């Protein structure tokens, strides 16, 4: 153990200690309504021991569940212009933002962290749904660009764990553009020959689903997670029909060929470790050397 790790680890642990003080001793499962003792619920990684319902968890808890020994380093989110449109609805956007920052102690709706996962150096970016619905504005977009670059630098796989209502309306078209910006970041990672794994959690919708969340090399979802493009209410209002049972749930998407697997939270860490083990065994081949040059393949040129 280096001096850096010795120094960093207690600090990381200290961050979680405050979570050990339970706000309430018993919690009701939102699915089966059974009461669960808080210690039991934490031990079960917030999966209901009665019905298996996967409750939402915050980004920090998620990261500590995945990294080896729960140890990880977060990176500071790159600075972006605040309130680029000077947006105001019933509230000013900077006020909404400050409220969310105060309530979460996060700068925005995502945490980017790196550490070991199953012994592999890994970068994980996890959405914080409680921060303005995990919505993607410039800060989240830029954080994902940074996460992909960090992974490239560390020659590490990138795991992204979205939980998001979609683009952040208060940043208008600049949040829409993040769909393209995050896609560039993933393309660059892919060209460096590194795996990109997405773990879709409840809920993942809108512009987030329609960009980085749906182009994973491996697409995993948690059981029961709501995943879709349009919201159920919008669809119902448009087509004036009842939606089928299980519509937009992870299992439904799996049946329709949109996911590789639905994985129980208790098995998530070992599944990710196995996938990374398997993908990272062969000598890595970046895009430039991936295809044997025959001398005949001339890059496409616009015809004059």
């Amino acid at each position, binding site marked *: 153990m280096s001096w850096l790790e010795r120094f960093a680890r207690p600090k990381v642990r200290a961050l979680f200690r405050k979570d050990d003080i339970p706000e309430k001793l018993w919690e009701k499962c939102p699915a089966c309504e059974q009461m669960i003792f808080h210690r039991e619920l934490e031990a079960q990684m917030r999966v209901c021991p009665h019905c298996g319902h996967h409750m939402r968890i915050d980004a920090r808890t998620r990261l500590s569940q995945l990294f080896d020994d729960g140890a990880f380093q977060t990176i500071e989110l790159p600075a972006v212009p605040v309130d680029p449109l000077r947006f105001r609805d019933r509230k000013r956007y900077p006020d909404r933002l400050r409220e969310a920052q105060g309530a979460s102690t996060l700068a925005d709706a995502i945490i980017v962290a790196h550490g070991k996962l199953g012994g592999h150096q890994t970068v994980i970016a996890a959405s914080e749904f409680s921060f303005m619905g995990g919505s993607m504005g410039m800060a989240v977009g830029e954080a994902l660009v940074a996460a992909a670059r960090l992974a490239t630098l560390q020659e590490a796989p990138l795991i992204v764990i979205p939980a998001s209502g979609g683009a952040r309306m208060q940043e*208008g078209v600049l949040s829409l553009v993040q*769909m393209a910006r995050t896609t560039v970041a993933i393309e660059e990672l892919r060209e460096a020959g590194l795996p990109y794994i997405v773990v879709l959690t409840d809920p993942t919708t809108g512009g987030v689903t329609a960009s980085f969340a749906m182009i994973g090399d491996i697409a995993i979802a948690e059981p029961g997670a709501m995943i879709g493009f349009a919201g159920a209410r919008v669809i119902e209002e448009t087509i004036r029909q009842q939606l089928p049972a299980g519509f937009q749930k992870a299992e439904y998407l799996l049946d*329709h060929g949109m996911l590789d697997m639905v994985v129980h939270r208790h098995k998530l860490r070992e599944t990710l470790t196995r996938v990374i083990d398997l993908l990272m065994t062969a000598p890595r081949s970046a895009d430039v050397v991936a295809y044997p040059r025959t001398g005949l393949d001339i890059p*496409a040129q*616009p*015809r004059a």
Partner: protein
Amino acid sequence: MNSYLDFEKPIAEIEGKIRELRHLSGDGGLNIVEEVARLQGKVDRTLRQTYARLTPWQKALVARHPERPHCLDYVAALVQDFTPLAGDRKFGEDRAVIGGLGRFRGRAIMLIGQEKGRDTAERVTHNFGMPNPEGYRKAVRLMRLAERFGLPVVTLVDTPGAYPGIGAEERGQAEAIARSIETCLDLRVPIVSIVIGEGGSGGAIALATANKVLMLEHAIYSVISPEGCASILWRSAEHAQEAAEALKLTSEDLLKLGVIDEIIGEPLGGAHRAPADAISSVGEALERSLSELRGVAGGDLRSRRRQKVLAIGQKTLG
């Protein structure tokens, strides 16, 4: 000119008078030339004043005007030898997305665009310009085809958004849009996008991730429709005007934000008043953009496009 927007009422009244005068003179041979000219001058003045300061919400109405030129109008006027290509080769043919080979000013191009349809039957055929996943998968297929043959891709964006339906979700609407963006970013041929009407959210950016993004003066381009935004943030669609204001969805704002590269001016009173003029301005702008990109190496086109996308956000409204 048959349909007037609410705020065009003063114009409708004067033009009504002109029609009346013409009708009367047809019977009695009255000399109305002077009076018509005077009224016409008034129409032009009123139009100029009104259209010089359209509110964002009024722009949304103009962008959706039923008589505004649509994708197929541009194709008919600007593309010779248009050869429509159909189907995504996976599930179906989506007529909300038009695609095909053709010749623009003598050079072969691949054209992809969203079509809303003109009358009720056409609107149903084209699903009001709201693509299903098949539309985006067809676009991806045609972009790759264009790349193989070194043809520039031209996209015309005009959609309220991707279709929100059961089948669309089941067949992966989100994935189809994501792959379309991904393909736009990967192509080694030039892509020029023109927002001709409504640039509705993810359904629009799926085809508008380009080397050059042009936008008609009164078109709109937004993360969400003003009505949708109002119903979420103001909890009532009645606040759409305020939402339109807040979203900064006009061509002028988007140019300042660096999201688009150029505004194409519209004829007096909007593209719907003189469709031929609007279409010809689009043709001129398209030719300029394509010639700028002609001869640029494929890898450079791709890396410049990515750099451009990554750089968005450095400019703000301040």
